């Protein structure tokens, strides 16, 4: 195809495209907002999958609650169920809130205030999650031992090697997860900065 032929096809294409205009005000302005929302899409997918696993685990503990025969185990069970239900749900709600911020229709100042509030809440929940996950780990061990084998796992010496390993892994994973949140919220903040009037 010579340039002249390309030109001819391109002109015809331009005419066709002109005939097919389909964007309206709403679609155009939504496009400017989509990019902001997409920043949180990936993390929302991970958190949703995590929430499903947590809810199922809470169901498992609840289903076996009758096996928890002492006050200590019952307290552990209640803590585990509360942790597995409340925290992931709160994180999902916080993510929903941060995604719902209207960058277009709200005044810039309101957007900044709403975003800062939502971001702080999200990061606060993450910090709570990190600290309580260490307690949750010990609670899970105690509950698993009791529910599965009806024994106190902490009496076994080998378990402490496993605990040390998991704690180190948990420490790294928590830092990585928190940094990921910082990165995403930081990059969303840059987007908001871009639309500063």
């Amino acid at each position, binding site marked *: *195809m*010579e*340039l002249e*032929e*390309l*030109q001819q*096809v*391109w002109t*015809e*294409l*331009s005419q*066709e*495209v*002109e005939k*097919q*205009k*389909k*964007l*309206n*005000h709403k679609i*155009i*302005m939504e*496009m*400017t907002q*989509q*990019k902001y929302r997409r920043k949180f899409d990936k993390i929302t997918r991970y958190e949703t999958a995590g929430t499903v696993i947590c809810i199922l685990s809470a169901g498992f503990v609840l289903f076996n609650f009758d096996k928890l025969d002492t006050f200590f185990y019952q307290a552990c069970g209640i803590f585990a169920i509360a942790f597995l239900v409340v925290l992931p749900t709160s994180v999902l709600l916080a993510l929903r809130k941060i995604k719902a911020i209207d960058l*277009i229709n709200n005044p810039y100042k309101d957007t900044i205030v709403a975003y800062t509030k939502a971001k702080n809440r999200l990061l606060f929940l993450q910090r709570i999650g990190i600290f309580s996950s260490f307690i949750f780990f010990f609670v899970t061990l105690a509950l698993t031992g009791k529910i599965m084998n009806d024994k106190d796992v902490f009496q076994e010496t080998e378990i402490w090697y496993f605990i040390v390993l998991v704690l180190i892994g948990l420490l790294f994973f928590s830092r990585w997860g928190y940094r990921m949140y910082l990165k995403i919220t930081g990059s969303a903040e840059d987007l908001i900065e*871009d*639309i500063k*009037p």
Partner: protein
Amino acid sequence: MTKEEAFVAIIQEHEGVIYKITTVYTNSVSEQQDLYQDIVYQLWTAYDSFRNESKISTWMYRVALNTAFSRIRKEKRQPRAVTLDHLNIRQAEPYDKQFEERLQAMYEQIDQLNSLDKGLILLVLEGKKYEEIGEITGLSKTNVGTRISRIKERLRNKMTKKA
């Protein structure tokens, strides 16, 4: 007219241009939609910096092509699977068969060019003068002329080889 209304009016007037740019620089429907969205977003964020020193279309082409280039650079760093579905994405409604074939042949030719040359040929096909192409791409008028001659030569050679 508010800033938002003025922006929307400009996008509506030039939506065809954005569509054509996205078809040249992408290979799948989802990529095209993403790039389209990115371009509109970048135009919105850059809208305040538009000072009427150049034509609005010149500014639009510049922002749109830069967005496409930076996306290509990003994809080179993070390669991903590409579905080659050229014809399907390049039309909103079905065209007649003959036109579709010519269109596909045109895209095949353009696809063989590198990203800058794609942008240059696109601007030539849009009927832009070398001076405006220079303004959009940041190249000198002479450089634009030389590059376009080379592109024409390459297209001609490809045709001869094919024949």
